Structures are given as C-alpha cells and as structure tokens.
C-alpha cells in the first residue's frame, strides 16, 4: 500500500512539474471534440444526442497518448529496473501507475465535460453525481488494461500501432457502458438504467484491476 502511494505521489509530482503534457492532452481532447462537431455539421439535435459518445471517444484517443508517455518515463534509462531493485513490488508499481493514470484521465474527462456542453449544446438532466461516478469508473476501466499493455509493448518498435490495436477491442465494454450511462445522464433516464450500466463498468474494473495487478509482475520481469 505504501509502495502504491509512493509511486502515485511520484507520478503526480512529475505531472505537476511538467504540466505541458496534461495541457497537450487536454488540447488534444478538445480538438477531437471540435473535429466530431465539424464532421456532424450544424445539426444541434444530433450533436446533443451523441454528446456522450464524443466525450468518451475523445477520452479513449487521449488515453493512448497518456498511457504511452506514462510508461515511457519508467523505461527510459532503465528507471523501471532501478525501481524493482529498490526493491519496489511489481503489484505496488502497477497500482501506483494505474491510479495515477486514472486520476489524469478523470481530470481530462472532467475538463472535457464543460467543453461538450458548449460544443454539443448538452446539459445534465439527471444528478451530476452519476456523471462524476461514470467518469471515475470509465477512466479506471481504461487505465488498468492500458497500464499493463503499455508496459508490455514499451520496448517494441511498433508500439504506437500496437497499443491502440490491443487496447481498443478490450475496452469496448467500457466505452459502450460509459457512453450509455453518460447519454442517460445528459438526456434523461426514465427507465432507471444508469445503475445497470455502472454495475457493468464496476464488474469490468473488478476483473481487470485484479487480473492486470497479478500479471504485471511477469511483464516487468520479462
């Protein structure tokens, strides 16, 4: 637990000292939102209806950049080997990095929501607490397998292609349930379906946070 908190603090500190990466990721997410809006055209009803989808596709695409750069700093100059020799436990390292990635994705999501409101003319109909919970669970669902995969391919030549290729099919359940839950929060939920979509997100998180934590040790040893 202490290891996890130390790794988390290290990543947060690095991020705080080099804020340019977060700013670049936010700009990237904003650009994607604008591109979706330009691609759809001035149909405000369509933009409002699909606002949840644009938000999560923007987050998904931003997540590949975030995950890649987050793991690159560990593999540059053999930092990860020194961390393991310290010794830092592999599960502690995984959970520290995955929580740091979750927090960063959550921040990008939280900043993107007002942008979505402006660009897509969307509003929150249900409680905004549901939206915050959806963002937290969705960000965690992207971060856990993403952290493991980015470590697996960190030393490969074709990693820019492999990370999205590996991550995107795996996180389809996250995207489907997060988009559904976000759309219900923004458009209204007369049938009380938000809870069941969030339950699916929670199950995905339980499975992958457990499985990836167990397997991460093998990845860094190799």
């Amino acid at each position: 637990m202490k290891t996890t908190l130390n790794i988390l603090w290290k990543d947060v500190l690095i991020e705080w000292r080099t804020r340019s990466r977060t700013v670049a990721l936010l700009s990237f997410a904003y650009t994607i939102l604008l591109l979706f809006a330009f691609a759809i055209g001035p149909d405000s009803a369509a933009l409002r209806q699909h606002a949840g989808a644009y938000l999560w596709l923007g987050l998904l695409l931003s997540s590949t950049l975030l995950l890649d750069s987050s793991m690159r700093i560990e593999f540059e100059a053999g930092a990860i080997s020194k961390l393991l020799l310290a010794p830092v436990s592999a599960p502690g390292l995984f959970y520290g990095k995955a929580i740091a990635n979750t927090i960063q994705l959550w921040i990008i999501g939280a900043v993107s929501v007002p942008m979505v409101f402006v660009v897509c003319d969307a509003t929150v109909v249900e409680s905004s607490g549901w939206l915050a919970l959806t963002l937290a669970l969705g960000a965690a669902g992207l971060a856990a397998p993403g952290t493991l995969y980015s470590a697996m391919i960190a030393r490969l030549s074709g990693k820019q292609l492999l990370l999205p290729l590996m991550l995107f099919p795996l996180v389809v359940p996250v995207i489907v349930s997060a988009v559904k839950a976000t759309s219900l929060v923004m458009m209204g939920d007369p049938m009380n379906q938000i809870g069941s979509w969030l339950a699916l997100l929670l199950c995905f998180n339980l499975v992958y946070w457990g499985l990836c934590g167990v397997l991460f040790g093998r990845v860094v040893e190799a």
Partner: protein
Amino acid sequence: MKANWEIGVGLFGLILLIWAHYTGLFVAPPEAMMGDVGRILYAHVPTAWVGLSTYLVAFIAAVGAIWSGKWAWDAMVEASVEVGLLLNALLLIQGSLWAKPTWGVYWTWDPRLTTCAIMVVAFGVVLALRRQIEEPMRRLTMSSIATIIAFVNVPIVYLSVKWWRTLHQPYSSPETVDSAMVTPLRVAAFGMLFLATGFVVRRWRQVHRQLKAEVQAPDLPDAPSPLAVED
C-alpha cells in the same frame, strides 16, 4: 506414422463433417421456423463450440507457458490461437450469411455479434504481438499474458445471449433441437473437433520445432571492429 497421427485424426474429422453436412442438407427435416436457411446450424453451431474450445486450449497453454516457461506450451499457445482465430472468423462469416435472409442485414450491432467480433480482434492481436517480439522468452511471457487477457472475452461471448436482450438465439445443444437433427449435429460437432485437433497438433509440431531451433541456434559472432585509420 506415429509422429503424424494428427493427419489421420484430421481426415477422420473431415469424413465425419462430409457425412454430417450431407445428412443435414438432404436427409434431416427443414427447421420449423426458418426452413432451409436453418440448415446452417450443422456448420455454425459446431464451429462455435470448437472455436471457443480452441481458445480454452490457448488459455490453458498460456497459463502453462507462463507457469513453466516451456516451449511446448508456448507452441501450443500459437497453434491454438491460430486455429481458434480461423474458426471464429469462419463463425462470423457463417453468421453474416445466415443473418442476411433472416434479419435482412449481414451485420447488426447485436451483443452476441459484437462481443464475438471483439474476441476475434483480441486474439488476432496475440499473433500480431508474437510477430513483433524477437526474444523468445519475452515473446512467451507477453503473448501468454495477452492470451489470458483476451480469454476474458470467451465467457462474455458465451453468456452474452443471457446477459443482454439479443436477436441471437439462446444456447443451442442437442437437447434444444428435434431428434432428427441431433445425429447430424453431434456428428458435425465431433467432425469439427477432430479436424481442429488435427490442425492444432500439426501446427503445434511445426511451431515447437521452429522455437527449439530458434533457441538452440548459436549467437552470431560479434561484428568486426572498425579498421584503424592509418596516419
């Protein structure tokens, strides 16, 4: 002959499949609701059963490889993922062919179809990853982990017809179809199982041999030092 028993098993499976498909197409009665279109059952259902079973073999082999670090398990991961990918790609094609006359479209975003398509891509990535890693032991570890993670999709595909409202039929089994259809369905399932076993074992032999040769190959000599420049 002993070393090639898988060829016999595969051929036996092929004979069973030919008999089952002949019986399914020309002898068994048409399906009550779908008519002759329903005869794809004899190809589609065995492909699904054996395709998912092949991924189960890949998962067991991946756990074995990561646990023991033996090349035989690693070869089995590659062989079973390759054959599983082939069978599941066939499954999607057969499903699309059946969907056009039944649902009016080749593809719809139904939970069973979507989860199955995701599963095919997830296991395809395992093979892409294997081709990217040159060092054998790292390849063994990384592809085994990718296989274990991809396998999480298999129970989701199987249970998708139960978890979500879906256009797809619920589970098919010999108990859910007419007795006249059971025999060709069972024979087709065993035929597909034997054929897939033949393919997997054959491919396993080839990959195992390649891996052993790769590991035992001597290292290349060091590059000669650059020529000294004479003054």
